[in-house]
């Protein structure tokens, strides 16, 4: 057997302890009153609506209208706009173009005592009121409404100095054409503002009288004009105001923050209890390999937490739900299987009376196929769970988005758990075991479950 240096154990051990500590508590710095996050801990995890409370709703065009992609983008942008107006910033929005569905999730604002999530959902789904007004104030004369606009789209034009600039084109309906030509005549060289609900989304100046029923809006007074993003956003918003259909609320759910916090506490207690039990069990059953297994388990857990929180502040956090935590706890329980199989094999080998090193080598080698077996089926299942309950993907284009996204996190933590198990439970724990078996005072066969050397 290839010898592994004695120091390896301590290096891996300290590394795992470091990962465990940082993934749980994070590393923060201070810059005056401002808190800087270097490494994200558990408190930086973005919790799902079942934990911090929140609202989930699925919108669809009413009356079975088949919306095209442009219209769906318009729907998305209007919901975006309204969420921002409601001061909701931490939301998730999943459009499903093949089924014309839009799923929205956002946290319940816990600081508001009388927050009415039902009202919030209704507001999101209400028909967009787009009005073109004379001047830049909301009380300006109403010139055109959303009905008069056929569509808006982005294109580029060549400006007088030879540059290309991005513009938003507007096409009007026949009725809109007349109205708009009158409006541009009246407000020539003045501002016409476009209002969505109570928000001004654009306030261009009329450069000339427009009679052919189409115009374009040039980006602001700055040098660059519109960026492609800005232009698309504006076009989407205008399209939203011109949507030929209403939105209906297909399904919705709300959970109050108090219930969620309560559940989180429960899951926290459960995971600590599970860890303690497994620790004792492994030490009693397998002694030294059991202890190594537990260290590896801590490593596995920290890798899982890192995969959820993002660990480094540049990575976004995964949205964690109660079933997600359950998946994490479950993968802890299943994770030690790799160590159990190996430890059992080593015990078997010790019984035959071989040398300790030989036993460890043989035991780790012969157990690998069983470990892989156990994990492949779990990987299959985890991937399918992610596909079924996850946001828009191949699977949902066939069957529509899920009514609830809570189980998605279960699939995710399960998958991450298996991968982490290969890194820690298989690779790291073998490394540690080989290394630790080189320490003289730990070479007693009884520590590995064998008989006392005769």
């Amino acid at each position: 057997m290839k010898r592994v240096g004695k120091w390896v154990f301590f290096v891996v051990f300290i590394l795992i302890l470091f990962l465990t500590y940082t993934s749980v508590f994070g590393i923060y710095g201070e810059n005056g009153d401002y808190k800087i996050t270097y490494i994200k801990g558990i408190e930086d995890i973005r919790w799902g609506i079942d934990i911090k409370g929140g609202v989930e709703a699925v919108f669809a065009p009413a009356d079975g209208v088949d919306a095209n992609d442009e219209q769906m983008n318009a729907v998305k942008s209007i919901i975006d706009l309204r969420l921002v107006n409601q001061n909701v910033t931490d939301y998730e929005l999943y459009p499903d173009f093949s089924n014309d569905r839009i799923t929205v999730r956002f946290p319940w604002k816990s600081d508001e005592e009388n927050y009415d999530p039902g009202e919030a959902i209704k507001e999101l789904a209400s028909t967009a009121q787009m009005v073109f007004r004379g001047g830049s104030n909301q009380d300006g004369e109403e010139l055109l409404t959303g009905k008069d606009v056929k569509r808006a789209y982005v294109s580029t034009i060549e400006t007088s100095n030879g540059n290309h600039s991005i513009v938003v084109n507007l096409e009007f309906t026949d009725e809109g054409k007349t109205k708009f030509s009158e409006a541009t005549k009246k407000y020539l060289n003045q501002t016409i503002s476009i209002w969505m609900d109570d928000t001004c989304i654009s306030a261009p100046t009329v450069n000339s009288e427009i009679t052919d029923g189409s115009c374009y809006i040039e980006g602001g007074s700055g040098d660059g004009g519109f960026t492609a993003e800005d232009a698309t956003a504006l076009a989407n918003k205008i399209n939203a105001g011109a949507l030929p259909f209403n939105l209906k609320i297909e399904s919705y759910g709300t959970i109050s923050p108090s219930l969620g916090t309560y559940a989180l506490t429960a899951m926290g207690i459960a995971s600590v209890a599970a860890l303690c039990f497994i620790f004792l069990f492994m030490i009693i059953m397998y002694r030294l390999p059991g202890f190594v297994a537990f260290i590896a388990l801590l490593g596995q857990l920290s890798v899982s937490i890192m995969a959820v929180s993002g660990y480094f502040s540049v990575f976004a956090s995964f949205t964690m739900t109660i079933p997600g935590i359950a998946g994490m706890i479950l993968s802890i329980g299943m994770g030690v299987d790799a160590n159990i199989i190996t430890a059992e094999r080593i015990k078997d080998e010790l019984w035959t009376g071989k040398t300790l090193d030989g036993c460890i080598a043989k035991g780790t080698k012969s157990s690998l196929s069983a470990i892989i077996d156990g994990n492949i089926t779990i990987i299959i299942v985890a991937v399918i769970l992610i596909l079924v309950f996850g946001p828009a993907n191949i699977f949902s284009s066939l069957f529509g988005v899920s009514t609830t996204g809570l189980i998605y996190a279960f699939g995710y933590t399960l998958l991450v758990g298996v991968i982490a198990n290969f890194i820690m439970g298989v690779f790291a724990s073998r490394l540690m075991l080989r290394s630790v078996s080189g320490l003289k005072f730990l070479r007693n066969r009884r520590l590995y479950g064998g008989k006392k050397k005769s």
Partner: protein
Amino acid sequence: MRQKFHIDFIKKSKIFFAISLGIMFVCLMLNIFLIPTRVDIQFTGGTIVKYSYSGDLTEKQITDVAQGATKDTISFTFAENLASSDSNSHMVSLEFTNAKAITVDEQDEVTKAFADAYPDNNFKVEESSSVDASKGANFFFKCIAAVILAAVLIIGYVAIRFKKIGGMSAGVMAVIALIHDLIIVYFVFAMFNMSLDDNFIAVVLMILGYSVNDTIVIYDRIRENRKKMGPKATTAEVSNASINQCLTRTICTTVTTMAAIGSVLVVSLIYNIDSIISFALPMMVGLVSGCYSSICIAVPLWVMWKNHSDKKKLEKEKAKKSAAAEKKAEKNTKKSEQKKTADVKSEKKTAEKLSLKKEEVSEEKSADEPVKETDADPEEKDSQEEDSAEE
């Protein structure tokens, strides 16, 4: 090989079959006549709203107000509100039984009705969910498709894996054990009156992946022991030894997994969180069932099947052997002289072992083909086998 346990699982298999079938039968009867299966609004469509309120109100006071505010029929569930620090806080869950989503407005009316009727009781929506019926149906089909896809993939994996370790018959038995576990999971949901929802699908998928794992490990051991224990051991003996050798591992793994999900269950029971209970409880039972079915269903069934098919093969071989023996007498080759031929015809046990060895040969040759009856002299083959075994 070291073996802690000496339990004759194969001999006791009839008891295990009886237990499993008995439990399933009782559950089925209860399910049909006493406890109907509930399907969650996630699949059927509908609306559930949970309110919390403080103070004492009779159930009738609540039902009257709610029912007065809507045309739908409502079914009520009452509970304590453990999440609140206020000890006199209660929960009431309203399920609008019409299989359609009620609008936000309708729900608001009920909420308003509560607030108007009992302004001091602090009625608050704690949880609500409303699903359109067509969307529910869509979600249902999606879940079914997912389960089928998972089942196909798992069975595919079993097929690939079992080509090496026990042949197709073992794979079929593993799948039977899998179905057994899924049925048990279903009955846990039905018997505890938990409605079938996304948790159910998650547990079913999880058990699909988990349960087959134990079975594969045991069959792997059987294959290993078949070589080690030599031709004298019967299928039952080899299987028993393999199960017993794997037992420590199976139990330990199940214990740690159960400890993990068990602590979730216990805590959720203490805290009374329904959505976690309906996840953890069936998962836990499913894990136990998965462990049990590998040992007590899959392997004993396979042994029964093996013995049965061996018997059939033996009869065929007997007929061939008599023809071959005549030929051999004429040729009188060296090989047949060396062979002991006497006991082949007489004892069933020997024949069993003979055919077993034969299968190994054919499996080595081409794993995917089932055992083929070849025209070659069986005795000759037998001796070849032994030669290679000696190597």
